[in-house]
């Protein structure tokens, strides 16, 4: 088993190394837009992600114990899913510039998870359930989607405040050929003017997508996370009913997850309002992610309850 665990730890080291170097490359890409940095960082992200899923599989296969029953395993899946969701969204929206943030957070989560690695432990009776294979991955994946939403919200806020005095949001773009005009919600004219005048910050800001597009990416990420956390809470309730006799016991973890769900539900409702869509909803997304961290780690570590499975 030692040999197996060495393989497991080796894959973990590969993943962390890929994330650290990938984060550096993609952070540099975020600021410079040098294509070779993206071409270096993205494969590192993919390799790190694959190494992590392989690590989880190897651990499960060789110990026979579902690897997500402790913080070490679940943080590992959290990091892997964050990177996987990021890769999917970046591919869909050409948003590779956000990779440095995601990979850095994934590396931090992994490094923190390693500190909880106590080796192989059999599961306590309440965790010996098929629900562990359903509920835990779903909830952890929802947290990962919220991490991606958080990262894009942060980029949105960076861009928004850098453009603080620019108000207009609609510019007319004349499309070449065909005599066709089309309205495009793009960057502010002031930003374009400043960039044309050689302002380096404005030139850099212009390399980021328009705020409206960033906001759509955040919405899409939350639209992955919110159904997942809803299903996660429901499957958790079903499991709780089977294990403890009640589908809802107001356990701190349950209620913290409910609180997180409420915040993202508020986000979705606010996003239907033109006056709230954008700056305010992105702040709600940031707040929501802090609550995710509290739900995920804070409750397990600081508050005792039915979910206090630390090691």
């Amino acid at each position, binding site marked *: 088993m030692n040999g197996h665990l060495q393989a497991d730890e080796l894959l973990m080291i590969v993943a962390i190394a890929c994330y650290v170097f990938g984060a550096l490359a993609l952070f540099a890409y975020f600021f410079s837009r040098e294509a070779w940095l993206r071409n270096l960082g993205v494969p590192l992200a993919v390799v790190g992600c694959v190494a992590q899923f392989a690590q989880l599989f190897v651990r499960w296969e060789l110990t026979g114990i579902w690897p997500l029953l402790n913080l070490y395993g679940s943080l590992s899946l959290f990091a892997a899913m964050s990177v996987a969701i990021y890769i999917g969204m970046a591919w869909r929206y050409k948003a590779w510039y956000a990779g440095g943030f995601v990979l850095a957070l994934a590396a931090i989560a992994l490094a923190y998870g390693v500190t909880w690695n106590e080796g192989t432990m059999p599961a306590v009776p309440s965790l010996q359930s098929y*629900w562990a294979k359903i509920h835990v991955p779903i909830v952890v994946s929802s947290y990962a989607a919220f991490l991606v939403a958080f990262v894009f919200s942060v980029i949105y806020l960076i861009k928004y405040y850098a453009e603080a005095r620019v108000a207009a949001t609609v510019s007319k773009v004349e499309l070449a050929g065909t005599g066709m005009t*089309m309205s495009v919600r793009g960057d502010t004219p002031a930003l374009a003017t400043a960039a044309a005048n050689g302002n380096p910050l404005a030139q850099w800001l212009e390399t980021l997508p328009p705020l409206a597009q960033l906001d759509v990416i955040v919405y899409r990420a939350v639209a992955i996370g919110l159904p997942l956390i809803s299903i996660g809470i429901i499957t958790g309730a079903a499991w709780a009913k089977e294990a403890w006799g009640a589908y809802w016991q107001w356990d701190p973890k349950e209620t913290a997850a409910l609180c997180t769900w409420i915040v993202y539900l508020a986000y979705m*409702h606010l996003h*239907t309002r033109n006056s709230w869509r954008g700056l305010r909803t992105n702040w709600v997304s940031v707040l929501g992610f802090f609550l995710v961290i509290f739900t995920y780690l804070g409750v397990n570590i600081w508050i005792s309850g039915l979910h206090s499975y630390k090691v």
Partner: protein
Amino acid sequence: MVQKLDNYYADFVRTFGNVLFAVSLFVVWGILTLIGVIVDQGKDPSIYFASYPAPIARAILRLSFDNIYHSPWYVGIVALILTSLTVCTFKRVIPARLPPLRPIKIDKIPLHASIDVTGDERTVRERLEGFFRARGWQLRKRAFDGTEWTFADKHNWARRGVLVAHIGFVIIAAGTTLYWARGFSGETVVVTGQSVQIPQTKAILHLNNFAYTITPVLTKGGMVYQPTDYVSKVTVTGKDGVPKPMTVRVNHPIDVDGTLYYQASYGFAMRFAITHNGKEVPALSQRVLLEGQSFDVPGTRLSVSYDRFVPTVDRVSGMPSADPRVNDPAVVLSVSDAGQQAGSALVPLHTWVDLGGGWRLVPSRYLLYSGFQYRYDPGIPLVGIGALVLVAGLLISFYFLPARLYARVDPAPGGRWTVGLAATTVKGYDMFESQFRGIISEFSSEHAGEAS
């Protein structure tokens, strides 16, 4: 009077039908829930005074934050949310489901485009309709003031997503209410070889045997004694009067006449051999005490409490060991005299304690007991259905974007025609921008400037 009532009703609908009001209720709900996470629930008041400064502890108790989920605040906010949800459903969600077909000012819509197309009007219209039909858009035509408009809708059915989610929420609430109205739950403890009757169902539960498994694991942090199994072998007599042997495990409850029984806890009951002047006192010796129970010594002011069972005593230190397996068992006893604590001691099994006045006590035998939770919840199917409906509503709302395209064809100079297109969606314009770009790009590449 009627006018006044109408005004109140209008105010009520305006307030409770407002999305920002609903979100404000969410915020309060979230804050109350978070308080419940941070403040320990259902503890003795002294715990709060020990954990917080006195003013905060008093506030926690006065505001019912020690039992927040059953407080008037919490129940009230959930009731307000349900009211808001109902009003929003009837006043906003259902009316918005099928917006009427009406003309618009195309260039006032942020997502709009105009494309010059050659050919006669009829063929231009046919090409426009054919383009959208081929892409799954549902077309309708209407004339307004002599101008013909073409309306193209996609995922119109998905406008019901929010309605479906709201209905799911209401079904969950109904299921929960059904449990409050007709369900029950409780806990019971059965000592090995004994029986209990469940008051609500009259079912009889006899514990034949309880066993637990502890697996010692050497971790990086030291030895951990991990519990890996709890099993109760029981004989249950339900409504049919036929005793049936059953096994209860964690995650594997048993169903007796619709009531579920769950493995919840276990512990060690004790029998004490009690003698007075060398003679056994059967009335006391036959009693079985659970941890935390006590008995009075007859004719004295003494009371003996069986505080807890210690499975293994460390032979070197003589103190309780971390090993939860039964090796060298002992019990922690405390004695009080006229209600005052007189002392406590760790007493190994089969050793005696002199209580004075000729009284002696020997912890003679331990018996495992099993704790069960039982619950009858007729609302479970509704809650399950509601949960599925809620998730379906969320998925419909998030992944299918209902959009409407408005198109009109106007004559342009040079025998050409201008196709004006605009798009609206239920989620604003940004969400549809890239798709709109794609549509315009495809249409213009296929038809712009094309001769009929």
